[in-house]
């Protein structure tokens, strides 16, 4: 199969490159026009396992490449072979070509098209919830962690009853919008979206695409299908990228050099049920295979084995990258294994989002240690202590506490990282605090986070902790030495950042966008931003990996449901700096 794949690539790989010239209708060169090259023919693939590659089978992805025009309106992207080309530029109508054009003159959008082309974040910025900031934050926290809000199909006119129906449905899928907020939010969305449609001139223009874009190349590997959700992933030292399909218990091992990907199906116990111990929230979905719920990835610096959090089980997964075998490590307790990292002592650290704990798996002993993070009050303590009893009840009959704005009973430890000094840092999404764990003493220190929605965090080379504040749309730095927080406004309005990563070598914080179809790069030294537009619309990202070698970054399109993103197929995306 590998030979076959190589031959396909050789046939279609660019043996020469040529430039495309993009201008406006008057012939003036257009800089920062996005040009995407897509193979016309998708390589044949074995997708015989319910639409997916069977375990161990290798297929080849139809790799797309995107570049941006320079100041002269030129992009070096034309390749030999059968490719289609798409040319986009802000304020201009998209153009498609089934054969490589030498030059493209883009027609300007009319005013309606222009407003319609704006990404979700600028529209969402003008939905002000009657000035009730707290309600807007509650809405964003619960309704924007899966998909973009204020996108064109969200802005469609709906009746209040239809909005209520949507919110109630989303709460069955996992959102936790408080019942008391459902009707007010429905009324506001019905009214304010209408007002915006009637006055689109109030919507600010999105950030302009900038000159640095012509210095990068974006490569995408489509994998899975419209029902998949490619959540987190890992750039492994062996050069492969491992992507987890959260809904179908599969990991995709992608060779970015060849475009080949091999699928490994995560095993589960025979008596496991769909949805695992959490129960299946997606009974109405046409297909679902999440007995384990592949979530987050980290590798052992010792042997390269990959550790994966299976959110739906009380377990930790290990993937032997040499033998291509999975090992299930059963845990003694804890619920919802979430984000995972490893340290230099070959210990595996991960958050337990439901039980408000942090787990440490010591590979040398094979033992788990669970660290209880403190409850915010007696009621929350009661809820957390009742979890074993609650989870002993069949999922269909399990009582579920009504959500409130404080998410009582669910402080939700979320992001985690190991700082250069070996200490462990955790963010609790709903509790708005950080936890510091001294791995030697086991001492836990809680630190109030002065903003809302700390999702994922990372430590930089100096030991500073960088956190995204989801509802506030902020990047926040915590200096543990000074015990001081510094906030940084994002360069795009009303973005709701899900995660970040730090390029410790280059001093860059990379922030996931999801409402603005962007990835954001923050230079720590200069405190300046670079914004990178995504090559597809409704590109929702949740994770970033960084290539130590060249500073390339990887992310995945993790919109849920995937079919709502442009192209309807998840992709792994790499942004690579072009050589001078």
């Amino acid at each position: 199969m590998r030979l076959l794949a190589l031959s396909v690539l050789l046939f279609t790989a660019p043996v020469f490159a040529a430039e495309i010239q993009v201008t406006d209708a008057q012939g003036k060169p257009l800089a920062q026009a996005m040009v995407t090259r897509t193979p016309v023919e998708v390589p044949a693939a074995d997708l015989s396992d319910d639409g997916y590659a069977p375990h161990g089978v290798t297929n080849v992805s139809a790799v797309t490449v995107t570049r941006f025009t320079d100041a002269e309106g030129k992009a070096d992207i034309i390749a030999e072979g059968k490719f289609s080309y798409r040319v986009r530029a802000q304020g201009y109508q998209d153009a498609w070509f089934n054969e490589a054009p030498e030059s493209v003159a883009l027609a300007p959008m009319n005013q309606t098209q222009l407003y319609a082309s704006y990404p979700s974040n600028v529209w969402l910025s003008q939905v002000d919830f009657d000035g009730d900031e707290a309600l807007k934050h509650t809405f964003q926290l619960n309704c924007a962690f899966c998909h973009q809000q204020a996108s064109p199909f969200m802005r469609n006119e709906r009746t209040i009853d239809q909005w209520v129906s949507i919110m109630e449905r989303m709460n069955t899928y996992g959102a936790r919008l408080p019942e008391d907020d459902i009707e007010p939010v429905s009324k506001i969305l019905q009214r304010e979206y209408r007002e915006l449609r009637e006055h689109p001139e109030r919507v600010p223009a999105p950030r302009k695409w900038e000159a640095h874009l012509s210095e990068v190349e974006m490569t995408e590997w489509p994998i899975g299908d419209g029902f998949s959700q490619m959540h987190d992933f890992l750039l492994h030292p062996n050069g492969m990228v491992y992507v987890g399909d959260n809904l179908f218990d599969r990991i995709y091992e992608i060779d970015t050099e060849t475009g080949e990907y091999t699928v490994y199906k995560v095993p589960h116990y025979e008596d496991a049920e769909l949805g695992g111990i959490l129960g299946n929230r997606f009974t109405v979905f046409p297909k679902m295979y999440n007995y384990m719920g592949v979530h987050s990835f980290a590798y052992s610096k010792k042997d390269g084995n990959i550790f994966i959090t299976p959110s739906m089980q009380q377990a930790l997964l290990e993937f032997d990258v040499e033998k291509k075998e999975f090992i299930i490590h059963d845990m003694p307790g804890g619920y919802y294994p979430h984000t995972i990292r490893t340290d230099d002592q070959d210990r595996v650290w991960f958050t337990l989002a439901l039980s408000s704990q942090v787990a440490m798996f010591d590979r040398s002993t094979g033992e788990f240690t669970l660290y209880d993070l403190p409850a915010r009050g007696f009621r929350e303590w009661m809820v957390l202590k009742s979890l074993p009893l609650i989870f002993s009840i069949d999922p269909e009959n399990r009582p579920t506490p009504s959500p409130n704005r404080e998410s009582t009973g669910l402080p939700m430890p979320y992001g985690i990282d190991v700082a250069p000094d070996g200490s462990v840092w955790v963010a609790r999404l709903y509790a708005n605090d950080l936890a510091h764990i001294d791995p030697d003493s086991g001492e836990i220190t809680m630190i109030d986070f002065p903003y809302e929605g700390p999702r994922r965090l990372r430590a930089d080379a100096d030991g500073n902790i960088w956190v995204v504040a989801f509802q506030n749309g902020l990047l926040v730095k915590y200096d543990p030495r000074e015990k001081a927080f510094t906030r940084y406004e994002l360069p795009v309005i009303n973005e709701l950042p899900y995660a970040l990563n730090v390029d410790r070598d280059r001093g860059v914080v990379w922030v996931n966008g999801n409402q603005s179809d962007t990835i954001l790069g923050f230079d720590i030294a200069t405190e300046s931003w670079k914004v990178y537009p995504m090559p597809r619309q409704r590109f929702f990202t949740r994770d970033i990996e960084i290539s130590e070698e060249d500073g390339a970054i990887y992310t995945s399109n993790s919109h849920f449901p995937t079919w709502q993103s442009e192209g309807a197929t998840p992709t792994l995306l790499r942004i690579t700096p072009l050589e001078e």
Partner: protein
Amino acid sequence: MRQILLLCASLCAASAAAQDWQHYGGDPGGRHYSAAQQITRENVAQLQVAWVHRSGDSEKLPAWMENTSAQATPILLPAAAGESLVYCTPFNRIIALDPGTGAQRWSHDPGIKLEGERPFRCRGVTYHEELRVDAGAPCRHRLFTNTHDRRLLAVDALTGEACADFGDNGQVTLHGHGQPADMISNSSAPLAASGLVITGSTVVDFHYARAPRGTVQAYDSLSGELRWQFDPLEGHAGSGGANVWAPMSVDESLGLVYLPTSAPSPDYYGVNRPGTNRYANSVVALDLASGAVRWHFQHVRHDLWDYDTPAQPILFDWNKHGDSVPALAQPTKQGFVFVLDRRTGESLWEITEQPVPPSQVPGEIASPTQPKPIAPPQLLDSFLMPQQAWGLTPWDRGDCARQLDELDNLGLFTPLSEKLTLMLPGSLGGANWGGGAILGQSGVLILNVNTAPFTGRLIPADNRSGARDARDHPTAGQRMRVPMQGTPYDVEVGTLVSPLGIPCSPPPWGKLVAVDLVRGSILWEQPLGSIHELGPFPLPFHINWGTPNLGGGIATAGGLFFIGATMDRQFRAFDTESGEVLWRHTLPMDAAATPMTYIYQGRQYVVVNAGGHAMFDRPQGDYLYAFALDSQ
């Protein structure tokens, strides 16, 4: 004074024209509106039966009656054409009545072939003054109708005699003539304009990958010679259908005829017809003179749901910000109303591309997006979650929740698969052929909508167990399995009901909706229909939870909206402003037809065909009811 006279003349002319009902939809643009205002909100409570006419079909063809649907909307002929009220029966008999008494003046029986499973129906006849015929000569005023067995007839409006100068002694055979009516037939009236008479067809649903083509044909209204024809599926050899079974509209000033095209065949499987199937599920505007496509607007791409364009395109003036745009409103089964500039086909509301779930059927490439107007809103909620299951008792509610829990359900445009899938709306709609009524110049549309859920699935054709059905639509409360010949599957569809036979969704199961097409919002909604006759025994009181409905309504300048359509034998008048029911009358049968109104000899009549509908599994009959206020 001259200006006043001109104004008066203009108003009087408009008023006189508006008080007629010379076209199936009230006017060539299907507005379902009358300027008649003798019957008003204030006096409608006094509305009484003026006369009752029976066609005699029940007596002459009793064995065939259970397979009929009385769907006719009569038209009132102008004085020069005899001023008769003319309609057709399900067996394509054309009958002319005295508008004041209902007494029969003449009838014409084309003697159709009586065979097959397809329900007999005839929605109307078309009047045309043929200016190439001398005044006073036979067939200067002629009526056209097309028959169950694919003939286009021309008869003299004054006598009912066949027009000898048209085709073969008053008839031409239409595309597909000679094939069984189960394969291709007719339901809606032809359209006459600019010396042409234009016909669509009904084509078998579900059963065949290659159903008969949905070719639209235009004939010379004098001679019956074929002038042009249009095949919406040209280039798709492996498919058929995309026919025009709903009424067409015409704007002679623009020289455009508007075709509401249906789904290509087969309805629930599209591997044999890759791509968008661009003229299917569309409004296609053809050049009236040549039949050339001037524009088209497709509201479902690569249909996998039987979302035909079900209703007559409604032509009206869209007045906004001081501009008046010649517009077209198209209600759809999926519950949207698309508002287009009828000169160009451009939507007057932004069209958003709604991402939709992919198909799981091997080889099926469903469209990744479907068009949705940013306003007005969808007229029904197309999601139904287990938590929303409804039942009379905890037992049947629980059963519905269980059923819903086991269904695939990703909302509108979820393709069928081998798993049972929610179809909401199902092929009944949303909107259907009853269309809607525009309130004068207001841009407000009132229309009836179905909301009851259906389910469906594909069954591999090699699985031969289970009975197959020769029908092409399930009757109320039943499931139907039909082979889709030429595909690897059978399809099974039916209503989603509890063990008590009650829809699993909360009522109403049919409703009336007033939509402001200019503001893009819903003004009011009301349940349409009572379920008091749908249980094991009729109840003496109404339970207004809405019923499935077929047939449409009409609006009048008297502030009223008249509609039957329901499964409770009621004919109702609603207040157009509030949606309140102001009057109702119990008919002997369900009125699954669109009413009409006219003023004759100073008295306003409202007429409706009451004869039931084969699909509703309710009694059939042959009644035409006229209502009026007491004589002045």
